[in-house]
């Protein structure tokens, strides 16, 4: 992404200085094509235990996709916010596809999503009354997802799967950062924002 920017002749520093950190970050997100293929996937099979970890991750992505779709269709979001939400939705769909493919390639049967009604109930989506509610809710899900990825890397045996989890966690962290900022949240002072 940064390479793209540089190729157009804009130095990273001047970009950050002129446009401001926040809009630069949005630009980076927007520059990611929705269905971007993840980098190199190994062809060997992940262990049964790694497949089980990935199944939990896939279930989490299914939930995130449903949350973005339901909240996106709620009419609570302004066009600007909806546009950002749809970019994030595209990332989660990319995550889902990568996980499902790797699970299948490793001999597993990828878990299916639950029904929208189940997600609406279990996530208490009916309680969201305005855009601020939706943004805080999404920020919470993204924070939980980031920690879920970071907190499970140590359980993985296969390096390529661990790399994938690093990618997934980093994407969720970007989502959290932008949503948290939009909600007026601050960034914690202490290092290691996720564990």
């Amino acid at each position, binding site marked *: 992404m940064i390479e793209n920017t540089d190729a157009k002749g804009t130095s990273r520093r001047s970009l950050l200085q002129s446009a401001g950190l926040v809009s630069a970050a949005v630009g980076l997100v927007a520059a990611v094509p929705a269905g971007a293929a993840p980098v190199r996937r190994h062809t060997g099979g992940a262990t049964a235990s790694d497949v089980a*970890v990935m199944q939990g991750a896939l279930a989490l992505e299914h939930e995130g996709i449903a949350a973005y779709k339901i909240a996106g269709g709620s009419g609570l979001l302004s066009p*600007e916010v909806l546009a950002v939400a749809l970019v994030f939705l595209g990332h989660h769909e990319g995550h889902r596809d990568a996980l499902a493919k790797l699970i299948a390639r490793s001999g597993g049967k990828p878990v299916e999503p639950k029904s929208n009604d189940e997600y609406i109930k279990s*996530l208490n989506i009916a309680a969201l009354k305005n*855009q*601020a509610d939706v943004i805080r809710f999404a920020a919470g*899900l993204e*924070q939980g997802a980031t*920690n879920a990825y970071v907190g499970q890397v140590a359980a993985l045996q296969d390096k390529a799967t661990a790399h994938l989890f690093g990618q997934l966690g980093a994407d969720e962290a970007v989502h959290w950062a*932008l949503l948290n900022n939009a909600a*007026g949240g601050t960034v914690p002072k202490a290092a290691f924002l996720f564990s």
Partner: protein
Amino acid sequence: MLRILATAVVAGAVLVVASLAAAAPAAATGEAAAGQALYLARCGGCHSLDANRIGPAHRGVVGRRVASVPGYAYSPALKRLGGVWTPARLDQWLQGPQAVAPGARMFLTVGDPAVRRDIIAYLAANPATP
């Protein structure tokens, strides 16, 4: 884009925080209060107090029989474990669920003892509703 979003939302966010605080469960101790934020951040990707999600609902888990939430499809490994969740057992679980119940479907570990203590205090502060 985000700047518009930020200004539109800050005022609302304050209200949401206020109402969340009002709805906060009985956090008897400082540990439980700190534990709430830690719980949401570390466990909230998969668990809630009142709904089965990727993992089972947690309200009342301290003192509850292992693998006993209705409607949640537990792994055979966790169903076999038996017994009741005590704070000490939860502390072991969070250090290594696979060591406690090999083949269970939770893999997340919490390395910091103080974080585990606060999260367990939060769970204990949210007993089953009658």
